[in-house]
């Protein structure tokens, strides 16, 4: 149930500029309104893409949150890979990593 709450914060933030403003201005107060574990709240506070990914946040929700935080595309991919290194495999959901951390684009390899 907690992953549901974690994703709900991001769902509401991704589509509502007022929630985005609250996240920028007083994220602790915003996050207190949701039933989050300490680990989940910390991941959100730090915009920790790697940990959020490992916790099971749907990639479509996480991708938008990364863009909101100004994270460039290849950096976003790297952060998820590093999350796996730091915290282990994705714990829930259907967005698990299956490629062993490899890059699938020449553009990323050449950057």
């Amino acid at each position, binding site marked *: 149930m907690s992953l549901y709450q974690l994703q709900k914060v991001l769902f509401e933030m991704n589509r509502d500029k007022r929630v985005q403003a609250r996240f920028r201005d007083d994220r602790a107060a915003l996050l207190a309104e949701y039933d989050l574990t300490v680990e989940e709240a910390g991941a959100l506070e730090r915009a920790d893409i790697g940990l959020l990914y490992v916790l099971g946040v749907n990639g*479509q929700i996480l991708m938008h949150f990364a863009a*909101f935080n100004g994270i460039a*595309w290849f950096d976003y991919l790297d952060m998820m890979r590093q999350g796996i290194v730091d915290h282990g495999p994705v714990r829930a959901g259907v967005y698990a990593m299956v490629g062993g951390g490899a890059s699938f684009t020449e553009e990323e390899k050449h950057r």
Partner: protein
Amino acid sequence: MSLVYAGVLSHAPGMTGRADMVENTGVRDALYAHLDLQRREIEASGAEALIVVAAEHFANFFMNNMPAFCMGMADSYTGPIEDPAWLKIDPVTVPGSADLSGRLIREVQQTVDVAYAEEWRFDHGISVPLHFLTPRYDMPVVPVNINCQGPPLAPLHRAWAFGEALRRACDAVPEKLALVGTGGISHWPATPDSGKINEAWDRQFLDRLMRQDKAALLAYTDEDTYRDGGQGGFEIRTYLAAAAAAGGAGELQFYTAELPIFAVGCTVARFAIA
């Protein structure tokens, strides 16, 4: 009057947002040329409105109240919700028709329990197709969503039945209508595997789709699709609905797995209306 055009196309955010990162620019431009051809075919069909059967990504619907099928019923829609600098599509108001939507929905409801929405904010799942197909945003749109994100997902045979219901609804109104299904085939979007594409699986699926091989198309299980086509493969539901709505054989106009920076095999196809 009836359905006058039916087709499918891909919708990945990279198709606009990462266009300037592409190394294989010749293939990218060929994709864009075929999308422009699809635009011209829709315009030449005389369509007065465009139905977009999409697979949105949590712009409107969440697991607190997730409809299997939903249709927009408003005179206008807004979007995209994404950062314009990231998606490289500016926010815009897109015309709709609450009246037309309402008539279509009532007919669809004869056989499918479709939800409706009087407000709808587009994400890349609809905004990218419109960017290419109605770049002046001068054609009324009827947004349609099939839940392809939050399992449990509607069975494939229900997506097919939904497409058939859309066709009956199109044929029951006087307007000329175009319909496109937009989704990916195999892809692992928004994961570290972004760019992974199972081209053989894609081509087998497209062959079955173009031949209207209903039995083979409905035989995919979500477990098989997840293994072979990734979580993005769940979006085949939009292609099935478009095929069911069209009824006729398809023509694959473009497919490439050579643009993995777009995180999907890129497809453009049309169906005969039968």
